[in-house]
C-alpha cells in the first residue's frame, strides 16, 4: 500500500540520485529477478516512438471534416466509432470528442497528473505535463493560448476540459477555410497535435 514516508525513508532514495542511473538500476534488478523482459521494453518504446502518435487523431479529424454522418456518430458516442478505426487502447478506453465552433473553443488539460488520449495522440508533449500548463490552463486559458501564438475572437467562449477521471478528450478543431476541395489525406496534413488538444488551430492550406 502506498503511504506517507518521511523524506529519508522513501525507498526510492536508496537508488542513485542521477535519474539515468536510477532507471538503469531498476531495470537491472527487475530483469535479474525475472520481472521484466528488456525485449518487452524495446517493444513498448517502439510502439510510442514509431507506431502510435498524432497521425491517428488527425485521421479521425480529417474524416469528421469530410463525412457529416461519421462526425455526428463520433460526437454522439466516440468509443464504438474509434474502436472500428482501430484506435482503442491503453489511456483511450473512454473517449469523448468535443467540437470547436465559432461560439466555443475547447481545450484539454489534466491538472492532477497527465491524462491524455494515447491511442489517438501518442504520449503527451513535455509542455502538457509541465507544472505551468497544469496550473494555468484552467485559470487563464487565453493567456496559455497566447504562449502558442493563438488569439481567439472575443465572441468565442473557452471551455477547458480537466481530465480528472478515466475519460479522455480529443478536440475536433474547426476546418480551415479554403479547404473545400481537399480530400481526407490532404486534410490530415493540416491537423496538428496541438489543435487536437485545443492549444492550436488547424493549419491553413
Amino acid at each position, binding site marked *: 500500500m502506498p503511504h506517507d514516508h518521511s*523524506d529519508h525513508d522513501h525507498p526510492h532514495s536508496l537508488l542513485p540520485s542521477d535519474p539515468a542511473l536510477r532507471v538503469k538500476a531498476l531495470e537491472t534488478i527487475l530483469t535479474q529477478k525475472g520481472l521484466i*523482459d528488456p525485449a*518487452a521494453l524495446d517493444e513498448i518504446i517502439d510502439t510510442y516512438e514509431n507506431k502510435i502518435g498524432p497521425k491517428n487523431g488527425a485521421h479521425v479529424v480529417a474524416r469528421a471534416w469530410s463525412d457529416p454522418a461519421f462526425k455526428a456518430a463520433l460526437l454522439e458516442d466516440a468509443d464504438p466509432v474509434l474502436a472500428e478505426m482501430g484506435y482503442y487502447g491503453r489511456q483511450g478506453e*473512454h473517449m469523448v470528442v468535443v467540437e470547436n465552433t465559432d461560439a466555443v473553443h475547447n481545450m484539454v488539460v489534466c*491538472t*492532477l497528473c497527465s491524462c491524455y488520449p494515447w491511442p489517438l495522440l501518442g504520449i503527451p508533449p513535455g509542455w502538457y505535463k509541465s507544472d505551468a500548463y497544469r496550473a*494555468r490552463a484552467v485559470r487563464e486559458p487565453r493567456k496559455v493560448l497566447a504562449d502558442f501564438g493563438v488569439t481567439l475572437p472575443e465572441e468565442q467562449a473557452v471551455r477547458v476540459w480537466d481530465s480528472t477521471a478515466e*475519460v479522455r478528450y480529443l478536440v475536433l478543431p474547426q476546418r480551415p477555410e479554403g479547404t473545400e476541395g481537399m480530400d481526407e489525406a490532404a486534410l490530415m496534413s493540416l491537423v496538428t497535435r496541438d489543435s487536437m488538444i485545443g492549444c492550436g488551430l488547424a493549419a491553413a492550406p
Partner: protein
Amino acid sequence: MTRVHDMGGRFGDGPVVPEPEHVKFHADWHPRALAVTLASGSLGLWNLDVSRHARECLSPKDYGRFSYYEKWISALADLLVDTGALTPEELAKGQSDGPSDLADKRLAAAAVAGVLAKGGPATRPSNVAPVYAVGDTVQVRSMPENVQVSGGHTRLPAYAAGAVGTVVRLHGTHVLPDSNAHRLGEAPEPLYAVALKARDIWAHPEHPEDEVILDLWQSYLSAP
C-alpha cells in the same frame, strides 16, 4: 487539504513552452523509464489509482524538483518495495538477491501489443443509481480530500471545491479512485462531466462566458 500534485489554478508558474511534434522524449533514459513503469504495472501488483497515489505521495520537495519521469521511476521504486516485489536491500545494492516468484507474470515482448491495445476500462456495473441528469445544478464537495482515508487519493481538485455547476454529461458508472487507490474495492458509481463558470471559481476570470469542465463522481456532488 490536498497534495502537491493538485496545482490547477496555482499562480506563479512561467510560460508554457510549445515543442515540435517529432520530440517524443527529452533524454535517452525517458523512454526506458516509461517502459519499465508500464512493464512493471502489468505484473498486477497495483492498479492505476494506487500508482497515481504513489506519485502523489512523493514529498512536495521531491515532487517539485523531480522531472516527470523521475516522479514515475521514484514512485515505481516505492511501489515495488511496498508490494514486496523488491527489497530495500536490493535497491540499495542495485543487484537482485534472487529470482522472484512472480516471474511467471512477466510481460513478454510478444504480449506487449495486445496488452496496450486491450487497455483497462474503468467502467463497471454499479448498484448506485444516478441521481443527477444533464442540466441539473450540483454543488461540489467543499473539502477537496478523500473522506474515507486521511491524506488519501482523490480526483477532486481544490479549485473546484464548493463550486456550483451544471451537469453536462453522464459518463456511466466508473471505478471510484478514492476507494480503489487504497485497495478498499472499486466501489463504482456514476461519473459526470460538470461545467463550472470561470467567474464562479476565479476572482479574475478572463472572459464572462469561459468554463471549466471536470469529471466528478456522484459522491463528490450534492444538490445545492
